[in-house]
């Protein structure tokens, strides 16, 4: 009896499995690879949104949470997508280390596959040679815009949290140096604090705990008019929580977005009506921040950059496969991205050797710019 019931179950699993093969076949499929919601939700929610928008066209995969250690598994995820001949483009957000190796492996057997990379972590001159398009906030330019914004919010000092792994990323290191110069120009003291690496031995919890403990320490030492900035996604929520408690200043996150860290720190529930509706989310955050007496001391970009990278990445890939857009035309790509973001942006190309696009968006200050 036992044996038979196992057989029946096995047969059922097989039948259900075969039946669940996607119905309806579009001309091509696009693969999306994002992180899970463990570090930052935006890129994953963006993928959920496009999967629902284009049913049957997208294959969504996630890369390992521990992507630094499990690089081979990450590469296998991408080559696995490329093994499906229907896949004609792959959108990766964020482009964690190993992306270049994965693209090369895929292009050996499938040179036709189009790669769109959001937030590449690897070195821009190498990424631009391999990826067809890359989208990333303009980090070097933010080296000036963030201290300026901090000054506008009333900061007298500027504190930058990071760790060696991030400081070996050229754009982030350049941004740090530019921030220091800009702070000097604006008459603000620049303080660099090394935080634990979330990919280190202690993992993310150790890094988050450090932020929760260090912010009050720094505020006690330097006073309330100090602006905080951290280069790591996982640190944003504890950072905002600690800043709200201490009454310090927060110009923007590493990946600027209303949904990055703010909802979690404020205890704001993203209901079904709010999900994906950024103006409504901004309004809800604004009300809460004003209520806590932090008006004019916190800011962000009106668009979720990680969310945008995923959604715009898929849109660009789709248009390119339909031959409706020339990916080398920066203005055309910019138009697509702006349309999805609903705001105007400043686009910049890393060099003529590829399509490595950096973009900059104006900030909104809570309690001031939001009505």
């Amino acid at each position, binding site marked *: 009896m036992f044996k038979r019931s196992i057989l029946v179950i096995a047969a059922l699993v097989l039948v259900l499995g075969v039946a669940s093969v996607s119905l309806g076949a579009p001309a091509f499929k696009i693969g999306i690879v994002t992180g899970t919601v463990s570090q930052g939700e935006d890129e*994953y929610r963006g993928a959920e949104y496009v999967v629902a928008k284009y049913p049957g066209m997208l294959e969504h995969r996630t890369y390992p949470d*521990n992507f630094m250690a499990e690089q*081979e*598994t990450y590469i296998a995820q991408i080559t*696995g997508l490329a093994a499906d001949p229907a896949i004609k483009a792959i959108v990766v957000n964020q482009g964690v280390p190993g992306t270049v190796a994965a693209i090369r492996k895929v292009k050996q057997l499938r040179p036709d596959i189009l790669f769109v990379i959001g937030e590449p972590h*690897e070195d821009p001159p190498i990424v631009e040679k391999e990826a067809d398009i890359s989208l990333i906030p303009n980090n070097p330019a933010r080296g000036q815009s963030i201290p300026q914004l901090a000054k506008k919010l009333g900061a007298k000092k500027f504190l930058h949290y990071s760790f060696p792994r991030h400081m070996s990323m050229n754009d982030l290191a*350049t941004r740090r140096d530019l921030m220091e110069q800009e702070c000097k120009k604006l008459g603000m003291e620049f303080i660099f604090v090394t935080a634990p690496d979330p990919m280190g031995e202690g993992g993310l919890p150790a890094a988050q705990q450090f932020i929760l403990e260090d912010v009050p320490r720094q505020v006690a030492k330097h006073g309330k008019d100090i602006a905080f900035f951290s280069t790591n996604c996982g640190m944003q929520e504890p950072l905002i929580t600690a800043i709200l408690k201490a009454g310090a200043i927060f110009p923007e996150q590493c990946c600027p977005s209303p949904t990055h860290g703010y909802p979690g720190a404020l205890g704001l529930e993203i209901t079904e009506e709010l999900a994906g509706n950024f103006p409504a989310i901004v309004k809800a955050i604004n009300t809460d921040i004003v209520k806590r007496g932090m008006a004019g001391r916190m800011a962000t970009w009106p668009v979720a950059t990680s969310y945008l990278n995923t959604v715009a990445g898929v849109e660009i890939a789709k248009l390119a496969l339909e031959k409706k857009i020339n990916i080398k035309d920066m203005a055309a790509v910019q138009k697509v991205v702006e349309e999805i973001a609903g705001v105007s942006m400043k686009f910049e190309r890393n060099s003529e050797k590829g399509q490595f696009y950096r973009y900059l968006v104006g900030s909104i200050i809570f309690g001031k710019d939001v009505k």
Partner: protein
Amino acid sequence: MLEKPTAQVKTPAGGSGVGISDILRNWSVPIFFLVISIAGIIAARLDINYLVNEVVGRFGRNAFLVISLIIPVMAGLGLNFGIVVGAMAGQTALVIVTHYQVEGLAGFALAAVISVPIAMLLGLLVGKVLNRAKGREMVTSMIMGYFANGIYQLVFLVLLGTLIPMKDPVLMLGSGIGLRNTIDLIGLSYSLDRAMDWLWNGFVFTSVGAARLGPWRFPLCTLFIIGILCVLTTFITRTKLGQEMRAVGQDMHIAQVAGINVDRTRIIAIMMSTVLAAWGQLIFLQNLGTFNTYSSHEQVGMFSVAAILVGGATTRRATIWNAIVGTLLFHTLFVVSPLAGQRLFGVSQVGEYFRSFLAYGVIAVALALHAWQGRSSKQSK
């Protein structure tokens, strides 16, 4: 390929038993992994061509590193998590070779040569520390890996460009101090894997009956080198040095009384392992084609140790077959589990959580099975 563990039961490494209970006892961990992997393959409805390609690729990348663990086990040092240090030596050699733009097989060979003195020196230091921590070698070597990582970052992120003069705008950060986080190895890419293309390019693309086989690509030269390493490792165990290592591994005190220089033998074992790990890391990185300056080595120790344990090795006994079977099974599971997770749950991130639960849970079970093995073999005596 997947039937290997059962097929190899009669090899000397599989133990002397031939009865079912002996097979189960000696190979319980690999058999357990095999069952999980096959279940995963069925659940994921995996394309067999993709599976073969991935597993062959990952075997070529990792086998050398896993085999480098055998000698220290023989000498009673347990599983050497310190191969991370060897990997750093290999990477240092790669930085030098890339800086001077030596490309192709010559570049690879040069990197292999440069890495030897660095790895030997580091291995000597690790060996000396481990000699002061007898009985706690494994945890010590693991912490040594973390410690060395700090020094590695200090050297390549701070000292390079300040204390150590170097100018290279491609490799170094814009400020002129420290290396960038990615180093492009395009000149060395596949330099070893494809070094025997003149013989056969390792390409399989045919069909048997209705089944399509391929396209697969075997890293022929790398597999050949791994083969040579297997032979050499077996050979070393039969030399005088190998016998001394075994004696030290069985009982340090008796070996000492028998006139063997225990400390020296242990240091030699660690140095060999470190040099092999440096070469293993070179093989790994020439296959990937890019190298993450500050993190490529971190993944080495844990995964190699996990692989050899999956192959049925213990901290006291490890053979070539344990390494080979373990590498194949461990990486099969890692290729299969993400897709299996995703297919079973339908939501990609739940698939990822399931995967890490499965992959690491299974390793934990493997360790528990070892304990069971150990106990039952004691009872049978």
